[in-house]
């Protein structure tokens, strides 16, 4: 065990025993709760890991398609449209909003993407030729960005959950391996101290009893001795005064007191 010295500095009284017992109970409840929280978080964490894996694979595919659709645009338009698109884009069409999700008391930010309708800044790009490709390429890239946003919220959740799980596990372990043993130790210590005190008390009482008995015995002996001495004297005196007088006479015997 973690050594007899590992206990709290309390006086071994019944009151602190009560306190300690309460504390132990509290610690055990807390431990259970935290353990459950940690399990819930870990479950969530595993799920997120799995989804990150999926999202990353998906991202690879989507980005490949997107890059390829850009190649198609280059083929169809036959030139660089990058500058024109950059210049004609005025406001964001693809936007992201955040919301919070509560998982066992942990707030995970989740990003949600949405497109603003009717915002088509470069709708006319490639009007002469390749316009269809440009639009298609834009859609493909919008899908790619969607995947990226999804991945981003998963990654953020991943990092935050990782941190929280570490903290919770540390607490669980601390309660399990430090606080509970220490409280138990303290309780044991208090109990042993109290037992010790009990035994001492018992022994003391026994001693007292012994002494009392001894004293009583001594007293008795003294009284008996005294009485014997008295009787002797009386007999002597009787013998001296009546000397063979009538035993059944009026003179009474002195009462015998034991």
């Amino acid at each position, binding site marked *: 065990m973690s050594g007899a010295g590992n206990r709290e500095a309390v006086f071994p009284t019944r009151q602190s025993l009560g306190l300690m017992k309460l504390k132990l109970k509290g610690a055990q409840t807390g431990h259970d709760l935290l353990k459950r929280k940690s399990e819930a978080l870990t479950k969530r964490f595993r799920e997120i890991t799995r989804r990150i894996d999926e999202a990353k694979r998906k991202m690879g595919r989507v980005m490949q*398609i997107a890059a390829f659709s850009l*190649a198609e645009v280059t083929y*169809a338009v*036959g030139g660089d449209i990058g500058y024109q698109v950059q210049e004609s884009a005025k406001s964001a069409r693809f936007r992201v909003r955040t919301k919070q999700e509560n998982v066992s008391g942990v707030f995970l930010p989740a990003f949600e993407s949405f497109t603003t309708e009717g915002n088509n800044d470069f709708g006319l790009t490639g*009007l002469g030729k390749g316009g269809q490709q440009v639009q298609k390429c834009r859609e493909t890239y919008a899908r790619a960005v969607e995947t990226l946003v999804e991945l981003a919220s998963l990654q953020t959740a991943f990092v935050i959950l990782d941190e929280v799980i570490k903290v919770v596990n540390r607490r669980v372990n601390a309660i399990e391996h430090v606080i509970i043993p220490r409280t138990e130790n303290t309780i044991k210590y208090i109990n042993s101290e109290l037992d010790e005190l009990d035994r001492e008390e018992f022994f003391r009482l026994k001693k007292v009893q012994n002494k009392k008995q001894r004293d009583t015995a001594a007293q008795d002996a003294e009284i008996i001795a005294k009485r014997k001495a008295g009787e002797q004297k009386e007999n002597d005196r009787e013998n001296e005064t009546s000397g063979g007088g009538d035993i059944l006479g009026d003179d009474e015997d002195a009462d015998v007191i034991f």
Partner: protein
Amino acid sequence: MEGLLYNVNNGYIEGIVRGYRNGLLTGNNYNNLTQCETIDDLKLQLGPAYGDFLASLPPNPSTSTLAAKTTEKLISEFRYLRANAVGSLAKFIDYLTYGYMIDNVALLITGTLHERDTRELLERCHPLGWFETMPVLCVATNIEELYNSVLIETPLAPYFKGSLSHQDLDELNIEIIRNTLYKNYLEDFHNFVNTDSDIAGTPTAEVMTEMLEFEADRRAINITLNSFGTDLTKEKRKKLYPSFGRLYPEGSYMLSRADDIEGVRLAVEGVNDYKNYFDQTGLGQGNGAGAGNMSGGAGGDSKSLEDIFLQREMEISKGAFTRQFTYSIVYAWVKLREQETRNITWIAECIAQNQKERINNYISVF
């Protein structure tokens, strides 16, 4: 008759262009290219055709630098032709560059509108559309200045005149400006090949009219298809259609009133070729694979309309070489070379991105 004196001035150029045409990649070459595993292999395969131009590329170059280098070859050859051309051929070659100039000017206007430093835009401009006064465009800081003092100095001034005011530059979408200019350019070019005293009545006029009419129709159809779902109104759309071509005037009128792909199909029904294209793509019959080329990643079996148009353009260009004593082979050669660059870029992209199943979407006519 034109054959009598043609070679005096233009025989050398024609010889050169025919030589260049033989240097174009053939179907066999493309087959070899599609077998390549890496960009380096591709570079090696392109070695005989492009030689020096690819020599300076680092190992495993990016597809964009590869495209830039192949374009570079086109440009240096084009410049050589231009330097040796005289008379009406020189003017004809100049006309070829105007299309690229329109793109460059549109780029610079975009830059000026957004108050960017237009100097850094110069290197993004297409070298074929380079004209001497182009750097001057960067001097203008606002759009009015650009219009009044700079644009009128450019060869494109006539295309601006009458159809665009400087307020339009501010308000209209740059794509509309670009397409308006392009429409004016096509009309002017068409006019040029049919009225110039040296060209009118020669095979040049004949072949070029066919090419330009095709280009005009293609633009009209594309603009209509691409404008669905955008805020381009029908009146504005109508102004972007060139006023010649096989669809003009009835087809154009119907195009201007089309609301959906079905409407476009009805509009082009008057011209048998285009009707066939639409039937091939299955457009307007409810199961349209999309009007864009290669159906944007969906990868359908049937070719898209733009693919068919490109294929057709290449065939017309190839056909131009069957005629002699004509300037149009220069135009055809430039178009073929551009398509070749696009093909190479496409194959390189497919190799780089490991999308081999689509690699055969290039267009080869030889």
